[in-house]
């Protein structure tokens, strides 16, 4: 029988330390929707999503109420549309029509976001996938719920530099099309290396072709819980520190596992994975940077930050894997800037720069995330930053991602307000030395030597 202290601890985690289940994401395969007729394809997509996910939001809300645990987001991921639209879409505008269909379906079922306006082009682009990438700016400007992602590299295939060159322009164009909203469109566009097929988190979620027809994936959160637990072990050894993080991660993940099983049972959809991520929000006390501070660095970005983050990330996984038999997705600590009040303060204090963030991405998930940069940044510079981050993922056999927001009309020293979970961000300086001659080369970077495992 549970005792009163355990009950009080659970209640405190939820009410005071922002413990929540960040998302229940239903993955839906659209492979059986494929048609060479665009209108028929769109009808099939709309019908499949609105039938499979019709109860998702209601069931999520019911579980939240019965267990007293907030479930912040209910979301959908679909098969990469670059594949689904290949035989029906002859031009980028055709893909925009699919994006609008996805948007309508997401609105109908009441989810927060729908991910999967995506292309997986780690080795090369088909004409269809290139058209999808060219459609992204218009698609994100004309929809509210759709998220886009492009996987441009992997440890097995190398890096598609042609796609990266195209994306430098795509990101800037997306920023221009949503200039009136502080270039918000770019917050819904992620570039990946080694993208997982079962990621429940936005903006990078898509339902990979390795998945079944429908699946329930759950992303947990809980930076505030870890931070509070660490307050009680100030000055203690690394062993005590690690043990505390592991125990806390276990508890947090078990809540996710319970919610995932319940959602799976009630919706009649197989359970896929739990994503063990420490996902911050702009709320005070829900910050990964605050955990790093508690571990012992003055601000995120100070010397020692990368080591502290490596430790944190590893212990979260070690505690979490015991709590669920199926762990997947991104699983690690997220270090977005605009979505984490402690990160924002570190940038404003001058402690944290893009280069340090890049180093931090070597030891955690996921990448350069939600970073506002000057709107007049050159496309080749954006491509160069992406290429660097992809190389880290490729060589280290891990997922890396880039979500940069060139804020049109704004420069270093100004800030942008995205609102809600996306937060606000100071515009950060980028290295302005050129890389045009590197980015303008055609083709791809070969797979690294350690990919040859056969």
């Amino acid at each position: 029988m549970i005792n009163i202290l355990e009950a009080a601890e659970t209640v405190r985690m939820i009410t005071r330390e922002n413990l929540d289940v960040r998302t229940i994401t239903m993955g839906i395969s659209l492979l059986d929707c494929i048609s060479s007729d665009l209108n028929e394809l769109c009808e099939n997509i709309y019908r499949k999503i609105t039938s499979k996910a019709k109860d998702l939001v209601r069931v999520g809300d019911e579980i939240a109420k019965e267990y007293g645990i907030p479930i912040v987001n209910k979301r959908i991921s679909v098969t990469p549309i670059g594949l689904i639209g290949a035989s029906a879409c002859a031009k980028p505008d055709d893909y925009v029509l699919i994006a609008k269909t996805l948007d309508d379906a997401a609105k109908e079922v009441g989810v927060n976001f729908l991910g999967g306006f995506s292309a997986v082009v780690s080795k090369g682009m088909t004409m269809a996938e290139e058209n999808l990438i060219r459609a992204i700016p218009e698609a994100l400007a004309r929809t509210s719920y759709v998220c886009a992602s492009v996987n441009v590299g992997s440890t097995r295939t190398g890096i598609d530099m042609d796609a990266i060159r195209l994306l430098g322009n795509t990101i800037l164009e997306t920023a221009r099309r949503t200039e009136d909203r502080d270039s918000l469109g770019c917050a819904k566009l992620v570039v990946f290396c080694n993208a997982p097929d079962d990621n429940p988190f936005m903006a990078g979620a898509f339902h990979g072709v390795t998945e079944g027809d429908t699946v329930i994936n759950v992303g947990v959160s809980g930076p505030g819980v870890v931070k509070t637990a660490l307050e009680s072990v100030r000055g203690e050894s690394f062993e005590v520190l690690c043990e505390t993080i592991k125990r806390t991660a276990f508890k947090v993940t078990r809540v996710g596992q319970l919610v995932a099983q319940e959602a799976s049972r009630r919706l009649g959809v197989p359970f896929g994975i739990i994503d063990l991520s420490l996902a911050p929000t702009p709320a005070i006390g829900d910050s990964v940077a605050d955990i790093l501070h508690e571990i012992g660095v003055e601000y995120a970005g100070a010397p020692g930050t990368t080591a502290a983050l490596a430790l944190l990330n590893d212990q979260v996984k070690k505690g979490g894997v015991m709590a669920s038999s199926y762990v997947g997705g991104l699983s690690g600590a997220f270090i977005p800037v605009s979505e984490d009040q402690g990160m924002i303060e570190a940038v404003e204090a001058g402690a944290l720069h893009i280069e340090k963030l890049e180093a931090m991405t070597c030891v955690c998930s996921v990448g350069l995330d939600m970073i506002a940069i000057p709107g007049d940044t050159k496309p080749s510079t954006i491509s160069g930053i992406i290429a660097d981050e992809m190389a880290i993922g490729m060589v280290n056999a891990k997922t890396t991602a880039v979500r940069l927001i060139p804020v049109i009309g704004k420069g270093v020293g100004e800030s942008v307000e995205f609102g809600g979970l996306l937060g606000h961000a100071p515009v950060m300086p980028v290295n302005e030395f050129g890389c045009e001659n590197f980015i303008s080369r055609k083709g791809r970077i070969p797979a690294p030597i350690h990919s040859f495992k056969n």
Partner: protein
Amino acid sequence: MKKVIITVIGRDTVGIIAKVCTYLADHNVNILDISQTIVGGYFNMMMVTDPTDSSVGAGQMSDDLTALGEGMGLSIRVMGEDIFNAMHRV
């Protein structure tokens, strides 16, 4: 039988247990166990209940008791037992 755990946290005042119990009795919710403690002047109570024969569902019970708590300056939460077991038992 799915047990429901009710936790009450707040400043200690007269009649807290009485009001919660009255609500539960009125709605045919059986109380299996009660424990309480006072930490730093704050009242902490945990009730293990069985709502099998109750006239209200867990959702309604949660809404009603939250409202009851707010009227007395207390935080009352109604949560399925599973979440505590998941978190605190291997």
